[in-house]
């Protein structure tokens, strides 16, 4: 439940396709309390419901922004949510490394 795996997807280049990846990993316990709270709020939400968080969705018409696919292991199996970049704490965003597969 402590390990958070992160995949950055989208952007102008279309990360997350077959050849271009952006992945990272952090321990929730290593995050600052405020960042851990932010991640846990995202994980508590259903996928795609970030837009419901007080108007925090990207602006209408926005394009090419990154999203983050956040996954934790739970007793029921892996749980994954997708969140727009501006909702993801910088400590989590900065954990990813872009690679060519």
């Amino acid at each position, binding site marked *: 439940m402590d390990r958070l795996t992160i995949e950055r*997807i*989208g*952007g*102008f*280049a*279309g*990360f*997350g*396709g*077959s*050849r*271009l990846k*952006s992945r990272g990993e952090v321990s929730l316990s290593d995050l600052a309390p405020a960042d851990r709270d932010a991640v846990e709020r995202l994980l508590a939400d259903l996928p795609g419901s970030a837009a419901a968080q007080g108007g925090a969705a*990207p*602006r*209408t*018409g*926005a*394009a*090419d*922004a*990154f999203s983050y696919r956040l996954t934790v292991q739970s007793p029921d199996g892996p749980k994954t949510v997708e969140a727009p970049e501006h909702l993801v704490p*910088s400590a989590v965003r*900065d954990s990813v490394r*872009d*690679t*060519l597969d």
Partner: protein
Amino acid sequence: MTYSCCLVPRDVLARLSSDPSLSATSRKAFLDTIQISHEMRDLRVQATRMTSVAFAHATALTALALAPSVTIYDCKGTQSLPGTPVPNPGKAADPAAKRVFGTTSEVAEFFAKVFGRNSIDGEGMTLMSSVHFGQRYNNAMWNGLQMIYGDGDGQIFVDFTAGTDVIAHELTHGVTQHSLQLDYSDEPGGLNESMSDCFGSMFRQWKLKQDVTQADWLIGADILGPAAKAKGFTCLRDMADPAGRHCLSPQPTLYAQVRPGMDPHAASGPPNLAFCTAAKTLGGKSWDQVGQIWYAALTGWGARPKTGMKDFAARTRQLAQTMYPGAPPVAAAVDAGWRKVGL
């Protein structure tokens, strides 16, 4: 005695001015009239020139007044927007700021001259861009209000401002937001991305004065870094060959391969190929006819956020007929484009 210089032909006046049956005073009067007539004609010529010059200058002045302002900000490696204003960006010491200012101004000129559009919103909206966003940031984007450019990591990508097609791509997202207002998921998302690639590529071709055979139809060729090039990649996407091995982000080529939830940067493959095929089938400059049809479909249809690829194909086929009724090859080329991708 008065004479109308405009009603009496010059040869009649000349004959009268030398008619010995007339008095010397009258002959002199006819001679003066010829002279006045000549001066009047010169005046008319001058007036015509004056009007023409004044009109040309007035048009230029109006165009200048309508050209949008271009502003550049520097995020200095942070993700705080918009960042610090760059004064006089056209002469900035920072190459990224100077480049974005120059290319953004040229994209505005492209939309104005080729499509008669004044800026993103058609009403002269200021074109605002931030450079040096984030650290080694491998992205460029449009956030609904402005363009944002990262420096790239120097390995997979270089500075995203290095791609003229990248800059035009981002600006076109703004145009889409202020016209068809396509959603950013599923088929409308793929079309949204395709609009940006089509106009991004057209701008690059227009700037390089290329016809459809000279164009490389690549997207992102100028922003690939050494690590990507070393692996044989030459572009992010290829509008002429979306699934090519040389593409860092290969795409499907057929409409039937587009799936719900697919990244719009993948789903844009079939409409990209349709546009490229139509333009290459017709020949000449991509922006002359096929580009005009795509622009009319994007901007002349009101807001239709849910437009799917079939709807868009039908719209461009219809526009090809109505915009170029005397040129059947145009409609045939558009039809060939969509048929190529199974639509």
